[in-house]
């Protein structure tokens, strides 16, 4: 005999303003099995919880239905309260009458009607609930950091410092990421390499950190505390254990016409290469798209000059599989391509460059050894125009709808550095708004305008036209002076919008984490859980979660590390008892469930069964490992005969819910 208690929450006015809570409590009190139905202003408050606890004792309840906010908010609160009152916590059901009802309806009549239906559905479900007991599952004390930029390095260092093993998987031959390409950093103007490379070295020297460079994550299985990750170690055709990083091979390689990605394609490198002097690990890599030995078997110079015998043209991609307790995602960003913005003449004129290219043009390790020269004729530019928001805050599909956040500050930095080093250069900046919220940021921008006399022009550039005399005509509007400007510039710099790295989308699928429409990873809560993904055990670090500058990235990286450390500290975590199980008498042994299980929790065994005709038959049946199952329910949907069922969300409960809605 069911004895069900129904508790309807007002949530202040959140629910009560659009749902007649008293009417809901009254309507639900007539449902079969309901012995008490009450409403209260804040059910999650201590007095609200006491109301539930007392009712359990007084009425000897066998099930509790709370009509309140989303179970994501307070399901645990009420489970704990019921458990304290002696009721199994899995005999509680939440009817979400806030997010799924009061917040989305305006009309009280319809909202109230819907709240009653949602309550009735939860009652139908709770009637079929069974008491469940949680189990414990061990935590693998190792973390994986995906991406070896400043975000990944910082997260890895913090986790390693706490005493846990960390692996960094970096797809490029070296760690360092975008920050390694940047010349100076705002607002202090210190050299990026000078502050980044010590961290790179620290990461490589830390005993707890293991760097898999030139590697990619190719598969992720498992769950929080117990992920199994397959890592693809791409063939670099150089034995990592033998290469000393002497660089002789890169000097002798005859294939010298390979665009150098580290210098944003502004100069060339060799087919066997070390990306930059401070690369970590400092190991050569052969680019198979250009190496003549790999392409047509003719050359072999690097192998001959290598005294360590490290070159191995027959190397193949290797796969390794390791277990991790926590995963930090730090996949970073890329500037978008200027190709779609043809009005800025990027593809027609070498002297129209992106900001990242300008970083390299100004860097001492760049193509011009640190002297700012035009790419076309290697002359000093005398007039430079910066164009902001190229593709950022963009309302068509050429660009991105969001603000890329870093461009205002780095453009002020560029302008200031140029005016400092080459005071005879005139610098113009076309902007929509200048956004400088950050410590010492606005002071920095004002210095560019007031001390360095950078010409900031509020307005957009309509057209950039390269002219025969080598000048570039920039046509733009000055909205404050309300006039059209034509500037004959020598160099034009485009502040391209940034976007998440292309590897993030397939990775999100592997990790079963969520992304927004711009492919930024979604945090578990935008305010209160900003570094966790909604998938337990997956943490977010850096720009993969949203545009941010270096200080913010580092702060988030450390926050993600702290969350990961909090998890790795535990010896075991409590598992969800809502796991699947198979009815062996109905199981066909078809393997459909095994194929869809993302956790590898299902195995098959041959079992003997006594058949109705008194014979014994051996049948292949599914068996679920409850410690591995995460209760996603994929198997119950895939099972053709309905043999698979999920505790707490059984097929019959779901049917009962549907019936209650359709009644």
């Amino acid at each position, binding site marked *: 005999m069911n004895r069900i208690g129904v508790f309807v929450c007002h949530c202040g006015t959140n629910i009560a303003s659009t749902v007649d809570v008293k009417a809901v409590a009254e309507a639900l009190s007539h449902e079969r099995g309901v012995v008490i139905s009450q409403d209260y202003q804040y059910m999650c408050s201590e007095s609200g919880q006491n109301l539930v606890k007392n009712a359990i004792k007084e009425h000897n309840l066998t099930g509790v239905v709370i009509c309140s906010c989303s179970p994501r908010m307070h399901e645990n609160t009420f489970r704990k309260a019921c458990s304290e009152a002696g009721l199994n916590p899995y005999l509680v059901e939440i009817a979400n009458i806030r997010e799924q009802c009061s917040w989305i309806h305006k009309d009280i009549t319809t909202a109230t009607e819907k709240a009653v239906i949602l309550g009735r559905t939860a009652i139908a479900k709770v009637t079929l609930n069974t008491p469940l007991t949680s189990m414990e599952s061990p935590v693998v004390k190792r973390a994986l950091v995906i991406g070896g930029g400043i975000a990944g390095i910082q997260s890895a260092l913090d986790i390693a410092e706490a005493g846990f093993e960390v692996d960094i998987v970096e797809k490029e031959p070296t760690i360092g990421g975008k920050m390694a390409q940047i010349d100076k950093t705002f607002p202090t103007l210190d050299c990026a390499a000078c502050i980044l490379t010590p961290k790179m070295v620290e990461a490589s020297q830390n005993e707890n950190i293991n760097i898999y460079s030139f590697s990619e994550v190719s598969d992720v299985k498992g769950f929080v505390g117990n992920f199994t990750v397959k890592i693809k170690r791409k063939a670099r055709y150089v034995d990592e254990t033998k290469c000393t990083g002497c660089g002789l091979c890169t000097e002798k390689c005859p294939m010298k016409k390979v665009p150098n990605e580290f210098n944003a394609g502004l100069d060339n490198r060799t087919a066997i290469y070390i990306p930059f002097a401070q690369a970590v690990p400092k190991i050569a890599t052969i680019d198979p798209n250009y190496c003549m030995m790999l392409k047509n078997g003719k050359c072999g110079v690097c192998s001959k000059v290598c005294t360590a015998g490290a070159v191995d043209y027959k190397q193949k991609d290797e796969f390794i599989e390791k277990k991790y307790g926590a995963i930090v995602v730090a996949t970073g960003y890329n500037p978008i391509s200027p190709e779609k913005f043809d009005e800025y003449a990027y593809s027609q004129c070498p002297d129209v460059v992106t900001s990242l290219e300008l970083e390299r043009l100004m860097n001492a390790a760049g193509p011009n050894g640190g002297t700012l020269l035009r790419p076309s004729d290697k002359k000093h530019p005398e007039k430079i125009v910066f164009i902001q928001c190229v593709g950022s805050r963009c309302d068509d599909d050429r660009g991105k709808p969001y603000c890329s956040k870093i461009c205002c500050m780095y453009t002020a930095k560029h302008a200031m550095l140029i005016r400092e080093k080459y005071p005879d250069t005139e610098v113009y900046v076309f902007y929509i708004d200048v956004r400088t919220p950050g410590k010492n940021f606005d002071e920095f921008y004002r210095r560019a305008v007031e001390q360095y006399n950078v010409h900031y022009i509020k307005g957009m550039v309509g057209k950039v036209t390269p002219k025969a005399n080598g000048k570039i005509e920039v046509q733009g509007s000055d909205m404050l002076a309300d006039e059209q400007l034509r500037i004959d510039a020598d160099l034009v710099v485009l502040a391209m919008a940034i976007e998440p790295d292309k590897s993030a989308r397939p990775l999100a699928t592997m990790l079963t984490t969520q992304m927004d429409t711009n492919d930024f990873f979604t945090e578990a809560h935008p305010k209160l859980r900003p570094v966790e993904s909604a998938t337990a055990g997956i943490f977010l670090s850096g720009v993969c979660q949203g545009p941010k500058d270096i200080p913010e990235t580092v702060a988030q990286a450390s926050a993600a590390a702290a969350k990961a450390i909090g998890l790795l500290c535990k010896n075991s975590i409590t598992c969800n008892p809502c796991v699947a199980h198979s009815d062996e008498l109905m199981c066909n042994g078809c393997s459909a469930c095994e194929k869809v299980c993302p956790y590898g929790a299902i195995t098959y065994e041959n079992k003997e069964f006594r058949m109705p005709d008194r014979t014994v038959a051996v049948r292949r049946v599914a068996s679920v490992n409850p410690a591995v199952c995460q209760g996603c329910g994929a198997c119950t949907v895939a099972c053709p*005969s309905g043999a698979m069922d999920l505790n707490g969300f059984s097929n019959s409960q779901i049917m009962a819910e549907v019936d209650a809605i359709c009644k």
Partner: protein
Amino acid sequence: MQEKMKQRAKELLADGTVNRVMGWKKGEFGYDTTPAVFRSAEEIDKYFVCDDFTNSNLSKLLVKESKKDGVILAFLKPCDTYSFNQLLKEHRIDREKVYIIGIPGGPKLDAEIIKSKGITGITGVKNVNYTLVIDTIYGEEKMPFYEAVSVKCKSCKSKKHVIYDELIGDDGDILESDRFDEVEKLENMTSRERFDFWQRELSKCIRCNACKNVCPACTCEKCVFDNPKSGIENKAVSDSFEEKLFHIIRAFHVAGRCTDCGECSRVCPQNIPLHLLNRKFIKDINSLYGEYQAGADLDTKNPLTDYSTDDCEPSIVHERGVE
């Protein structure tokens, strides 16, 4: 052909390779053939038949037969080998216990079509230059051969055997089939027209369960329609909505596993074109996840129980349904 098959079956029985033979025997009428298991050369000589009417797919019967002692010989037409492979993939058949001889496929004939022309008392048929010469107890009748071909053979997808131990006759090729044309016609209807079409067809259903019983994808240990716990067990149709559910649930259950063998429509006593429901699923799978033929091999994963990072987003599927 029939003689060669009988000969080979007797040889394999004699040398002990197999202890049973699965083929067809004549039923009450000549055109009324039915699957049968033979245990001796005498039985084969007396009853074994393989002719223009041996339509039925033997693969499903091997689920039970392969659990018995000894190896069974099965004669499989190309389309039947797809069903066999699919069942093998689902671990429903013990491969070691079946010896497969691939035999050429159709086109097979449908006696119901001949009878619908008013020709009754059929005792035998002959194909003379694509004219079907029919012997009846009332004398000889004629009709174009093609018109008498079974629906499932008219849109044959393959003459290739995808699994066998030996072949009698030559192996064929996968064919360019127009089997999705009719599905396209349904897709081009308005939702009202389509609803009316299925309403009309499915309201003819008498729930005889022939489609479910013949379907090689329906081999569950306990069918949901026979399971009191499923909530849909043995439900008699109580209104015009429910009568559609049986076939729609069945189509969902076999989606991604249906090899399009066409048996469901062939056995339907009410001539409901059930295969069109399954073909719609196949067509959708092909267009959403890339070409997939259930049973074509043992390794390719069923796209409905597999994911790859370039799978389409659910919104694409949703938007297609919006009119």
